[in-house]
């Protein structure tokens, strides 16, 4: 037992490094009285170090901590994505003007960020329901506070309260679902659940109820209809950097968890059918359920985004819609489905972070988040304007940007699995999404700046470096994406693919 614990620790370096970084930040925060982003740089170092140790683990496939945590390529992929997002978020945070008033508490900000990262990394690798719930709550609790970090502003406070209320309720419901699932199967880890359910079950109704309840919690985290209503308020109220991490990292983590949970628990051990789709444990219709949710998310997200003026709110609805697209991949779940989700998330990371980043840069300089006030910004800040255009075009899914490849791949997976109606909705909604994305572009370029603000906006070199770090992958992935496909494919071996 001790041996296994010790061995497990040796497989757990990335998480341990982040925990240690958290401790170092606490100490540093006590010692250093200057109000600057030192702690942020420490956390950045921690993330990078964790990323390096993560790379050393690539290719391993084992179960540690008494089957609580799976160290496998699938979790490595998601952890790499999460750490990458975390690094970008820190780079955003150190430039954020919103945080300036809170410099005396900035240490806490980074502590919570570290906690959130730890939670998310465990979310994607947990194979035990308790561990999964703990990680889920660790992520949630840190993000509740982070959303309200700029607590002097009313809207930040309000969004954090809404977030914790919706979050607490939905995680409570999810927990109830877990308890039912555990009761039916008598197992607390997902492999045990699968074993207990293998070959059909007599408790189909109860199981479906429990899945419904679990979906409430997970749907909340990925912000998918009908559990999305928190997202617009929270994104609008939260500091941009936190809105970005919620839109990207927290979604990535939730998808990792969702895929692992559903594909391991409810897939019949028989594996694939002739047509290449998964055999689902008899009597459980979770994939139809998810399909409907995906369709609703696409429809509602895109249609509501049409009439938003606050750009963060618009991006929130757009991210709901994107959750719908990604969920399509989960619905299919056949090998292509999962790898298409992973590809989508990878590209989504760059394009969505990029959009949030430019929004933050503009907010720093102009203090506005209103799309109407973006008029003429393309002329005042050419580089940033072009970059935002490219990010939004990529979010729409027009080639030759990464967003197109992501959509292509996920649509392709859906077509090949025969979910034609879902693809048709997705295609239609992509057209709708064009309207609101292009509106921002139109405002930036087709109108002259207001007379009070015609001077060009200058950004420092540093912010441009970060911008290019997001822009280049977005464009490059639209043209050459073979390595990403390989990476995603190699990462799903754990499902026997």
């Amino acid at each position, binding site marked *: 037992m001790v041996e296994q614990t010790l061995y497990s620790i040796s497989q757990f370096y990335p998480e341990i490094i982040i925990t240690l970084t958290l401790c170092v930040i606490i100490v540093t925060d006590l010692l250093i009285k200057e109000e600057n982003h030192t702690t942020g740089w420490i956390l950045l170092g921690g993330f990078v170090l964790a990323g390096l140790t993560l790379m050393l683990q690539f290719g391993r496939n084992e179960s540690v901590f008494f089957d609580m945590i799976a160290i496998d390529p699938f979790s490595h992929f998601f952890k790499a994505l999460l750490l990458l997002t975390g690094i970008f978020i820190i780079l955003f945070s150190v430039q954020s003007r919103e945080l300036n008033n809170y410099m005396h508490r900035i240490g806490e900000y980074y502590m919570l960020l570290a906690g959130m990262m730890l939670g998310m990394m465990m979310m994607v690798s947990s194979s035990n329901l308790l561990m999964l719930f703990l990680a889920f709550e660790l992520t949630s609790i840190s993000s509740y506070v982070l959303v309200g970090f700029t607590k002097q502003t009313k809207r930040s406070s309000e969004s954090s309260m809404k977030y914790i209320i919706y979050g607490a309720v939905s995680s409570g419901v999810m927990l109830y679902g877990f308890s039912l699932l555990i009761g039916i199967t008598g197992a607390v880890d997902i492999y045990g659940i699968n074993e207990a359910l293998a070959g059909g079950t007599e408790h189909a109704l109860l199981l479906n109820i429990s899945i419904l309840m679990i979906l409430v919690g997970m749907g909340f985290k990925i912000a998918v209809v009908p559990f999305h209503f928190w997202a617009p308020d929270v994104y609008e109220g939260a500091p941009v950097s936190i809105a970005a991490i919620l839109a990207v990292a927290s979604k990535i983590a939730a998808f990792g968890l969702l895929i692992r949970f559903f594909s391991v628990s409810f897939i019949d051990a028989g594996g*694939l059918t002739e047509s290449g789709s998964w055999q689902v444990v008899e009597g459980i219709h979770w994939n139809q359920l998810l399909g409907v949710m995906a369709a609703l998310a696409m429809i509602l997200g895109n249609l509501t985004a049409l009439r938003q003026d606050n750009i963060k709110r618009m991006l929130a609805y757009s991210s709901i819609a994107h959750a719908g697209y990604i969920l399509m991949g989960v619905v299919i779940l056949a090998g292509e489905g999962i790898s298409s989700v992973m590809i989508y998330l990878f590209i989504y990371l760059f394009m969505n972070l990029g959009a949030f980043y430019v929004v933050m840069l503009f907010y720093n300089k102009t203090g506005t988040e209103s799309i109407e006030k973006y008029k003429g910004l393309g002329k005042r800040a050419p580089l940033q304007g072009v970059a935002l255009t490219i990010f939004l075009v990529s979010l729409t899914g027009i080639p030759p940007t990464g967003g197109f490849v992501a959509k292509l791949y996920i649509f392709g997976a859906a*077509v090949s699995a025969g979910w034609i109606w879902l693809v048709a909705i997705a295609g239609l909604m992509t057209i709708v999404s064009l309207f609101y994305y292009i509106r921002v572009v139109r405002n930036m370029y*087709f109108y002259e700046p207001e007379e009070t603000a015609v001077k060009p906006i200058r950004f420092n070199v540093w912010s441009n470096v970060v911008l290019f770090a997001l822009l280049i992958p977005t464009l490059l992935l639209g043209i050459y994406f073979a390595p990403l496909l390989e990476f995603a494919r190699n990462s799903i071996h754990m499902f026997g693919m």
Partner: protein
Amino acid sequence: MEFSIFGIGILTWLVFAPIVGMIIILMLPDKNRNAIRWTAAGATGIQVILAGVIFAIFDRSKLGINDAESFQFIEKYSWITVEAVPWVGRIEINYFLGLDGLSVLMVILTSIIALIGVISSWNIQKMVKGYFALYLLLVTGMMGVFVALDFFLFFIFWEVMLLPMYFLIGLWGGPRREYAAIKFFIYTFVGGILMLLTMLALYFSVAYTDPASGQSVHTFNILHMMNPANYVEGGLLSGVDTTWRYVAWMALFINFAIKIPLFPFHTWLPDAHVEAPTPISVILAGILLKLGTYGLLRINFPIFPDATIYFVYFMAALAMISIIYGALCAMAQDDFKKLIAYSSISHMGIVVLGIAALNTQGMVGGVLQMFNHGIITAVLFLAVGVLYDRTKKRGLYDFGGIANQMPKYTGLAMIGMFAALGLPGLNGFVSELFSFLGAFEAYKWITIISVTGIIITASYILWTIQRVFLGKTPEKLTDLKDLTLREYLAFIPLIILIILLGIYPAPAIELMNTSLSHLVDFINTGG
């Protein structure tokens, strides 16, 4: 045919010369406008030279269409290959370019019109750098579509055109440019999504057996999609005359019909034309519309011969409506640009009618009409542009007696107008004649009704000539200057082509005859 410069194939140069130009332009300082213009002219000039080389050495006897061996200037590199997955097989996307008789004329047209467009853009003053960068990106997209033989590549080039066009209309256009730009964008984007879904369905239905490894490989290769033997069993689009094949054909057809534009998908065109700046109108009418008919010929016809034959009457009927409707609408316009826009709809209808005949005559006539119409509308839009530059007016009733003030201009413009009317001896006549002859063989009544469109065309063009060029010159127009050297440069090559092809169309017909006959056989034998 092998031809390469520095080890890079001629088609790659052709497609990416504008991109190189764009990158250079982006690095030039804003102020240095002339350098920017000359770079753009250089990039498109190189294209013209390359197109000339292609014209000279193109082997007129090769079949093309569905036979990979007989394509010319082939460049094929593996672009994205992902190794085997059990139920999907290997994924393969190629960088696959090639020319056959169908595309060669379009490539030549594109290079000419692109250069003319640069020349007529010379006096654009607003955001010169952005304008030319977007312009060159647009040219790359168009050229790419004409030479791509991989559906994925085709799609990428197809969609690359969208954004530059949106900005070019939306930023440099007329008063209602914003509306026109977004309308254009949405129409084409809707079509694009339809094409994307069809492309995916095709991809999963088509798998060829790799001779080297014996693996089953899914592919975007358009030529493989034409071979019925490559369709996997149980694929969505496998089989002949299935509902899904009809649906797929229809989705593609709608996409291309939007671009052509065929009635009832045409409503974006008048808006876009009216609001677009002159050079963009030239590009739009001269090349962009041809992408639609080209797409039908390259993708719809050979990949879905069964569905093509099934829908052929439908297509011919739409073409007929377009011809008549376009001509009637043109008659009713009092805006010069709108008039040409509607006449484009009418003329593109003739193209569709010709190719819908599914015989060699009609097909040759149709493709030739594509080329001719490109040249002719370019002249017409340039003509409008010249007047608009001088007077800032486009209304037909705003002018009169221009012939007295600008005799040389009038002469050139009238040649263009007579060519549009189909006057024998000018190029429009030849292609329209062929198209109608071919169509008459296939559908008597539709053709007969369509021919009345020609009469309407004649009347509105003559009426326009009368209103604009003849009669008394209004007071305010008495100080108009005749053409400048730059304007001559834009006009003369096109006028020469109009006359040359009117008298002796053989060089153009020779280029495509073999391929198109083969295409006709291919469709009529059911693939």
